[in-house]
């Protein structure tokens, strides 16, 4: 248990380091990227124990029942997770507060190889449509990269950008725009 936690922490740290490395080769020269790093590790380390470890205990159950129960529990856990993650303007950096839930989603995918996830990337209405389409995809890909490092298989995840075409909020002010710069996770079972 203790060893597991430590190894998880190492994996998360490696993920963050890798993503940061990727992002820094990207266009955004946002200093917040590196600033976020430490807090993420702490968050991940503290939260990783509460994930889906309960399934490990039930060794006595018969296989089918076990699988069914596992699936039920996983789904229930999934439903409790956040499935929409928000981004800064003209940025495609996975935000700090998304790490915990995205790790859990990744874990679910790794435990359910048949599960398929579509990451819908979105942008706010400001700027041009095709540029926003690219921006939406960048956001989706940033999330996808995070999750594959966390254990999801890349063929389980597809990124589809909708750019600014499908706003969550219809307003034309900062509050609405913040809600529209997002990546939505949609499972196709």
């Amino acid at each position: 248990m203790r060893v597991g936690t430590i190894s998880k922490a190492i994996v998360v740290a490696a993920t963050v380091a890798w993503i940061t490395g990727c992002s820094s080769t990207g266009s955004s020269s946002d200093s917040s990227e590196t600033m976020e790093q430490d807090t993420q590790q702490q968050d991940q380390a503290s939260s990783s124990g509460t994930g889906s470890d309960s399934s490990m205990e039930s060794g006595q159950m018969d296989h089918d029942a076990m699988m069914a129960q596992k699936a039920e529990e996983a789904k229930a856990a999934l439903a409790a997770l956040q499935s929409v993650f928000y981004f800064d303007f003209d940025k495609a950096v996975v935000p700090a507060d998304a790490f915990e839930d995205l790790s859990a989603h990744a874990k679910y995918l790794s435990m359910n190889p048949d599960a398929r996830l579509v990451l819908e990337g979105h942008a706010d209405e400001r700027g041009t449509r095709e540029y926003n389409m690219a921006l939406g995809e960048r956001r989706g890909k940033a999330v996808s990269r995070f999750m594959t490092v966390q254990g999801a298989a890349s063929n389980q995840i597809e990124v589809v950008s909708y750019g600014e075409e499908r706003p969550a909020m219809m307003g034309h002010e900062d509050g609405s725009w913040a809600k529209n710069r997002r990546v939505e996770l949609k499972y196709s079972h």
Partner: protein
Amino acid sequence: MLRLGALLLFIWSSLAQAELTIEITQGVDQPVPVAVVPFGWQQARSLPEDVAQIISDDLYRSGLFAMMNRNNMLSFPTRSKEVYFRDWRLADQDYMLIGQVLAEADGRYRINYELYDVVNETRLLAAYIKGTNKQFRRMAHRVADAVYQKLTGIPGAFATEIVYVTAQRLSQERYNYRLEVSDADGANPKVILQSNEPILSPSWSRDGKKLAYVSFETGRPAIFIHDKLTGAREQVTRYRGLNGAPSWSPDGKTLALTLSKDGNPEIYTLDIASRKLTRVTRHYGIDTEATWSADGKSILFTSNRGGAPQIYQQELATGWVERLTFEGDYNAKAHLTHDGRHLVMVHRNRGSFHIAVQDLKTGRLDVLSQTSLDESPSIAPNGSIVIYATQEGDKEVLAAVSLDGQVKFRLPSKSGNVREPAWSPYLQ
């Protein structure tokens, strides 16, 4: 002796040039008054369209002309011998257009028209145009084109079309998207495609016969080509990731487009006949919104490789890349005017998005629009007007501004949101 001769020559020449010369360097920018007199029609049954009104509306919408109200006309001449210049001059008109519609033996119609300079008392134009019952609007636009060219020195672009996308939100998750083509004045809208999934980035082939656009109808973005004449359409790309921003090459054989199949959004060219794909850009930043230079030898595109979106130009043969825009921290979706001199684009100025034009010769940038959230600029084939999408209250509408920023107007509003206008080339 020689000096005396030179002196005499000097005196002679100064006497010969005795005329006083006055320099006029400034003028006024006000609409030129023009009277379009109702066209004559001898038969009892009424015509399907008021030709003179369509012409008058066209000219008015250019912003360059002030049209005379019919109610103020003392007479409705339809032939030259019925024109009394003094009457029209007293009504402060500079020009007048008269004409008549005649039914031809073959069932078609003939429109005769004559344009007069009221001040100079001369006839500038006398011509006719023929067409069917259904072509009255198009014929009227053609007459307006001829008048516009005579009066402004620039070809008219009234007999052209505009393609655009409308979007209606039916419920939280349900939308209705339509790709429509209408006359340049918004009349005769025709639906090309209807879908519950997004449609965007329509682009005209340079001969005006085909349209390329992006549709999400398959659940993913894909590029389609629509043949206007036959109505046939085909999907030309289905790559993983982005399939966007199609743009026709000047020769109509190649599409430039954006794909992210290799990881990042990059510009590619697609040979339409052979479907051969060639990668153009190679950069980890976003490269998109390609448009062609007039000679087809290079591609202009939006890239954030410098940190923020700016316009770059890349030579296809050599791969040489040059950044074109430097003013402001957001310049995107560029179009070149047909003479290649001006770059029209979306430009962020103090946090708001406007349409701007940059003179590539002098480097000077002018912001043309003062509306909000302006995007998708498209230049009329005569280079006089830029049409673009903007926000009006909670509605997306189309607006237009002349390239010199002098004339601004809104296009008639339709139901739902109207966006992504693209002006057709001259049509045959």
